[in-house]
């Protein structure tokens, strides 16, 4: 089965992760622009970060047979430095039309400040202008209020709910998100918060329509294999194959595919020029059944 991880910060991960993901069936990833753990202090570092998401990281992923896409946006944590945030908003249009940019994101609330709200609104307008979907990061603290507020604001700006993915849901928020017609994404967090056994029950209780599973793997404690592991667990625990495919592949494809920048043919049958530029003509990926997890063949470093 093919897997998409539609929220993972690969810049923070190693090549071992890419190898393991490819082996577990991951064919495509979306890396949302986020903060780096340490706040940036100038617009130049934002520009270089965005450039690395559409450049180097895309190439790096392709070396392992994985297609890399990204979302571009000013995250909520760094939105609070208002003068800098204004400068960042100015350079966003330079990146939003790039190939492989599938949404404006991840944007939304962290501390739910007035400045965060201002930057969120400005980027929703931008998303409408460039006709891209939006990936909304919901706050970890005060989650329920933050999620509701985020949806209200999207509605105020006239964004159709099918163009918005509300991310980092839990059992408490999912019903209201689905009721309003948005996509509801779930991040599997190892050890804390949302484990994947809970995810299995979410799918059992809420079904597979508009529900998306992701890893949000980054530089913190996280698991880049969260989506394939959850897919396997769902199957083991009796969730229908069709529902697993929807939540771990097809729904993400449908949601972000609305950008026109995220097509199954990119990995099933890539254009000749993409094969040369990204995959150097090799067919690591195309039509191949993913390898099964295997123990290391050898300790010898060659």
């Amino acid at each position, binding site marked *: 089965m093919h897997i998409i991880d539609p929220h993972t910060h690969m810049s923070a991960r190693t090549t071992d992760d890419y190898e393991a993901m490819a082996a577990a069936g991951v064919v495509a990833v979306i890396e949302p622009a986020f903060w780096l753990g340490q706040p940036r202090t100038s617009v130049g570092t934002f520009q270089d970060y965005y*450039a690395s998401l559409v450049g180097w990281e895309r190439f790096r992923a392709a070396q392992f047979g994985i297609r890399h896409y990204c979302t571009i946006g000013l995250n909520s944590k760094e939105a609070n430095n208002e003068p800098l945030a204004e400068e960042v908003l100015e350079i966003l249009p330079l990146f939003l039309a790039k*190939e492989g940019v599938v949404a404006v994101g991840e944007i939304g609330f962290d501390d739910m400040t007035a400045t965060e709200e201002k930057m969120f609104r400005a980027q929703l307008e931008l998303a409408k202008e460039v006709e891209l979907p939006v990936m909304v990061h919901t706050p970890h603290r005060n989650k329920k209020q933050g999620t509701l507020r985020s949806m209200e604001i999207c509605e105020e700006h006239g964004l159709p709910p099918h163009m918005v993915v509300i991310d980092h849901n839990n059992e408490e928020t999912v019903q209201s998100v689905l009721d309003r017609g948005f996509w509801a994404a779930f991040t599997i967090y190892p050890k804390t918060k949302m484990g994947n056994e809970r995810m299995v029950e979410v799918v059992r209780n809420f079904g597979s329509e508009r529900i998306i599973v992701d890893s949000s793997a980054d530089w913190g404690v996280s698991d880049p294999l969260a989506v394939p592991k959850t897919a396997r667990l769902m199957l083991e625990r009796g969730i229908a194959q069709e529902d697993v495919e929807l939540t771990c592949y097809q729904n993400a494809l449908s949601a972000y595919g609305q950008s026109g920048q995220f097509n199954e043919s990119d990995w099933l049958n890539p254009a000749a020029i993409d094969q040369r*530029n990204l995959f150097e003509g090799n067919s690591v990926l195309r039509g191949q059944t993913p390898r099964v997890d295997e123990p290391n063949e050898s300790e010898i470093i060659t």
Partner: protein
Amino acid sequence: MSATPSDCLSKWVSQSVPADAFAWLEEQRAATAAGETKPFYLAFGLTARKLGKADLSLSTADLEEADTARSGWNPANWSIDQAARTLLVLALPIEDFAHYLKTLDRLFAAAEVGELVALYQALPLLPSPLAHQNRAAEGIRTNMKSVFCAVAHHNPYPSEQLDENAWNQMILKCLFVGVKLDPVIGLDQRANANLASMLLDYAHERWAANRDISPELWRMIGPYAAETQNGKAMEDLNKLLKEGRELEQQAAILALRSCQADEAQAILQGHPKWASAAEAKAFTWSSIAAAS
């Protein structure tokens, strides 16, 4: 007057895309030429979406025309979006040259992989080639193989503009990252003694690590074999002739033939099988590159 690169590109793109898509491109080129940077940046990004990215699939006649328009220019592997992006860049006004360079800098700084490849392979077509030396060097420093190849392969810019050190680094890097030398333009003309010595060191490092060496490496050492490291190169070639794999033996023959020293001819005489005229025509550096 013969056709310019822009004329060629414009003709090829117009033959490859629907009329309305080509009209869009013409509109964007006009706006770009009028000095409006915003539509330029936007159009540059949208090109693949508007025109697609199929290969241009040029004929031999097209490629001859390209070489006439700009000597050494070989767009055989270009795609439609790359051609169109090049047309947009060539439409930029250059009267205010500092402003022109600033526009290009911004374009490179925000470029995605496909755009970088298009930009670097367009380098030899840009006005004032000297102004882009640092840019080319940056393209050579990249870790993205396809971007590196956009500078190194089928591109007359490096052999025309790079100083010896930068050129030598590029050749060494080709071997280092495992891309072929044969598609590098001006390879034999710019062989030099320092490069030969660097590559010989590299060959011995690889052997020490039990790793293969591309037989193409000897192409750059051949003409300087006699003077490289007091005859060490000559010994290696002799050894390859005796013990090397088939392609290495072929490479050693061609390398020795490119060497003027009597010693090289003497070694060749000692291997009559390879010295015969029939064998001589059976392989070239290109055939060795293709097979390795």
